[in-house]
């Protein structure tokens, strides 16, 4: 089941509460968890742990990198019931996976919807999270993204190689960032019966809107209230691409307005010539920034 076609070390398959879960667990030291974006049953895009491929090696040379295929995505199984296509079930699955791996408090690095899940875990389980790195955290930001415009008319057939290439190329600053290996992973995930089932489940009974989006917007409001009233419970680094075609940089500025009043250790890093996947377009710079940030916030409460 687990595929390790990527340059990320060997994939492991864990049984997490009956859900087969693909995990990469590389390197030693400070535990840094990478949470990819997307949601189960997306009919246009494919997201999985493989998105982190360009940074895993650099990070794993210094810290313990854990990359998880989230519930209903990549090579991890789908939620056990249609009612569980929610951000709560997805966050719970990440927490259970880390517990199963025997990890203590971790640094969570999340991309878009993965950043949302990371913030949600930090709010619900502050004892499990040392710091947050929120990359292109559009799902966490009030306001909308430009996906509905930019990705309105994908080439057919949907989620074929040609279509997936188009989706990635229109998300990046440079089309050169889209390599064949990245596409290999996306195509392989799209072809799994598991993914097709997730797409069908989300489309049946308007489940995407009535179940997934409902859970997401409700939780998002709750997290915004926490940000406003007491702040996120841990140091937080926001990372964004200046040229993001999907998540405008203005949303990063907006998120900073929400985060800064109550969390002193809030920082923002913006990379030029970077789109929706800044860690793929500037992997070395991104790795350095994450490494130094997690080192500075690994247990020290008194950083100046």
């Amino acid at each position: 089941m687990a595929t390790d076609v990527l340059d990320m070390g060997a994939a492991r398959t864990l049984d997490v509460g009956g859900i087969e879960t693909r995990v990469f667990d590389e390197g030693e030291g400070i535990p840094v968890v990478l949470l990819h974006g997307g949601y189960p049953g997306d009919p246009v895009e494919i997201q999985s742990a493989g998105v982190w491929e360009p940074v895993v090696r650099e990070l794993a040379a210094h810290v313990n990198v854990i990359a998880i295929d989230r519930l209903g995505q990549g090579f991890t199984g789908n939620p056990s019931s249609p009612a569980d296509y929610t951000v709560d079930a997805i966050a719970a699955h990440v927490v259970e996976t880390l517990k199963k791996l025997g990890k203590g408090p971790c640094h969570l690095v999340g991309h878009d919807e993965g950043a949302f899940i990371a913030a949600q875990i930090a709010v619900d389980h502050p004892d499990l999270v040392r710091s947050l790195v929120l990359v292109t955290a559009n799902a966490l930001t009030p306001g909308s993204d430009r996906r509905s415009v930019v990705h309105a008319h994908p080439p057919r057939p949907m989620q074929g190689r040609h279509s997936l290439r188009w989706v990635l190329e229109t998300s990046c600053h440079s089309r050169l960032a889209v390599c064949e290996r990245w596409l290999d992973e996306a195509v392989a995930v799209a072809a799994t019966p598991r993914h097709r089932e997730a797409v069908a489940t989300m489309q049946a009974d308007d489940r995407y809107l009535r179940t997934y989006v409902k859970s997401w917007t409700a939780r998002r409001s709750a997290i915004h209230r926490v940000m406003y009233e007491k702040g996120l419970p841990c140091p937080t680094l926001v990372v964004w691409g200046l040229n993001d075609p999907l998540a405008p940089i203005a949303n990063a500025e907006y998120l900073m307005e929400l985060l800064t009043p109550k969390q002193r250790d809030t920082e923002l890093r913006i990379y030029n010539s970077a789109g929706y996947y800044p860690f793929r377009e500037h992997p070395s710079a991104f790795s350095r920034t994450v490494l130094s940030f997690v080192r500075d916030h690994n247990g020290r409460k008194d950083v100046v």
Partner: protein
Amino acid sequence: MQETWIDVDGLRTRFLTAGTGGRPVVFVHGGTIGDASAGSSANDFATILKLAGANREAIAVDRIGQGYTDNPLEGDDEGWTMRGSVRHFIAFLEKLGKGPYHLVGHSRGGYVVTRTTLERPDLVESLTIGDSNTVAPGGARNEAIHIRNPHPPGTREAMEFSAKFYYFDPSIKSDGKFETELAILQQPKIKAAIERMGEGGLRARLFLPGLLADREDLFMRLEHQPLARRVLILWAYNDPTAPITMGYELLRLISRHQPRVSMHVVNQSGHSLYRERPAPFFRALNDHLEGCYDGN
């Protein structure tokens, strides 16, 4: 930390160093020649020099007519302008002979290092600009604070008043740093500079018009030409005089022709990020210096 004096085009120039080896990093302070309200100098970087000196030679220089560096020579009107400050800094780098350097400039010093990178990229390894409303397009807000100051410029009371606005946490500055600045302002040469620049003097006649023209020129150049080295923009989220929006605008301007520009914003700090939040300031700077030769 070591204090050294060298002759730069006939001016006794003072600089501080910490650490040895590696590609040197040079810090350039803010403030304006003949400004009675602040005694900016290389001393501003005392904390950062120690951090940066741990793995390379770290240098901070007193700009012309500021700190303990001499005033411009008699007859050198340009010496009293930002153009003169850039000229003196470039001459200092050449005299030191250790280039190319990593340059880090704060506030007005950000203009000095940016202009140096445009004019003399051969002297520059990388560029870092911190909280500089001189380099960033848009309107500076310092005057709004100074105009409200009820105390005579150059007094401890006036400095305490300014610090309340300039700092997110004004208590950071109260520990000995006023004394350092007051001592600088007590020097006869600084008093002479204040006299020269003050009412009816060179500030209104030469410095401000020159700066206005040079900034416009800088913006036009940056619209069409790259800064030829990698750039980091470091900004304090709560800067009252160089608002964060100016930092974002500067990033947009430089991003047109320099693909390797990034920006790092740190929360809960006023104008002097390197003093209020030295740890995150240095972390972001060090990543930039160490990552200077990174590919993708």
